[in-house]
């Protein structure tokens, strides 16, 4: 039975744009890793979708005001972490989802050392079981 998981890559806010300050070879290695990782998961048929998100400087937090019109805040200065990107994978077991997340977490960072970023793994809910419908 296949299960879907969302793997959310969280970067510390201070580290958000930190890649901007890395040496060239490290930036290259990181990009190559991420491109290769997506290709590999697509190859095994486990990748459903993956997107990187724009840096948090461009993020807006939106809620409806009393009149129902959107109110937007600038960025969220209080946040310690922000979502940098995500993958949705379809795998045979939760362990496999964790293994994929661990591999992504170990993407090379400054000096080629693994970043070991926090990746939140959550199962994507499916429809109700047939006997409940």
């Amino acid at each position, binding site marked *: 039975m296949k299960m879907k998981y969302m793997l959310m890559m969280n970067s510390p806010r201070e580290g958000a*744009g930190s890649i*901007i300050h890395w*040496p*060239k*070879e*490290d*930036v290259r290695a990181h*990009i190559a890793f991420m491109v290769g990782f*997506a290709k590999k998961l697509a190859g095994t048929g486990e990748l459903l979708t993956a997107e990187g998100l724009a840096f948090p400087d461009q993020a807006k937090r939106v809620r409806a005001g009393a009149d129902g019109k959107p109110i937007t805040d600038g960025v969220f200065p209080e946040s310690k972490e922000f979502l940098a990107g995500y993958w949705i994978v379809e795998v045979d077991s939760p362990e496999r989802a964790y293994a994929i997340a661990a591999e992504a977490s170990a993407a090379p960072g400054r000096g080629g050392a693994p970043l070991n970023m926090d990746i939140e793994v959550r199962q994507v809910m499916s429809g109700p079981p047939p006997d409940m419908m």
Partner: protein
Amino acid sequence: MTEPSDRRIEHLLREHAPRVLGAVLRKFRDFGASEDAVQEALLAAAMQWPRDGVPEDPRAWLIQVASRRLTDHVRADAARRHREELVVSLVPPEFQLVMPREGDELVGRDDALVLLFMCCHPALSTATAVALTLRAVGGLTTGEIAKAFLVPESTMAQRISRAKQSIKSSGVPFQKPTPEETAQRLGAVLHVLYLIFNEGYTASSGPELHRTDLSGEAIRLTRMLHALLPDDGEVAGLLALMLLTDARRAARTGPEGELIPLDMQDRSLWSAGMIEEGVALISATLSKGSLGMYQVQAAIAAVHDEAARAEDTDWPQILALYGVLMGLADSPMVALNHAIATAMVHGPEVGLELLEALDAEGRLEESHRLDAVRAHLLERAGRNAEAVAHYRKAAERTTSLPERNYLLTQAARLNDART
């Protein structure tokens, strides 16, 4: 009849789709119903032709099948239809579709042209016009179009059906546009084709930089338009621009899908055939006079493409052409490119001054491009610390992943060199 390959049939169907739709539409007048009937006929052909072979006159076959379907539909809900359509339903299909014998080719040509003008009607939103053009003139399925623009198929289906509704309610008649109408609306048609090409050449979303399916389709449709209006300079200019731009495709990205800027590209990867065709086309067009912005852009692309090495580029000529282009199109992006050309001819500091002026105008506030260009010019001026800062700022603001990766690499490279 020969054993047809699926690829050949697909090609045949795309080729015939607009003329078939045009012919059916000329008889039945209802855009939505005609379009549905033609889609059904195309589907029938896609299923039958690989098995039974391609009929001798594929277009007549498609027109006949589509008309039969349409007549059936009209008969089925005749009660709910208008009186004219009722009249149509009473005429046997074989009489409705007597193909004109003489001047047949001419009628077919005009039908395709009218169809293109209909789909790019100024009353439609640009996104809608793009979708409708790809479907009605390009013969792409709704699913294919949805996939190309990364939207759910239901969304695209809705967009297309709304477009057909707007055409119906706008009362645009299906007839050959007058020369004035042609002149007025050709701009919208060229704009739509240009957008389709650009979406294929630099995809606005998604991880991939290229969508060859879309740029190829745009080139095919523009070729068709050029065949219909061979004397129009802007049509020829747009086709040349597409060919001269697409010729560089193979050199634009590296093994990891990363962007490679023009001056760093391996020019041996450029398509010599496309460059030759594009240069010949634009040279012939420019000698005829009456300049338009697509022609000038094609001329600029030709100057780039004709340089065997980046350092051989004739920048003074490019600068002069951007001067002409600024007079034709008041766009901040053109002004930005003009600043780059100025920097290449008169030095980076002069280019940076032009950027200051552009910045003060505030028209490029939403774009990261100004930062990216400023970074390049600062680097050329040897002001590396400032260049790094602007590469980084541009990287933070772009929403294209390949472009962000490129800008990040530039910032890092320069920073490495500095320390």
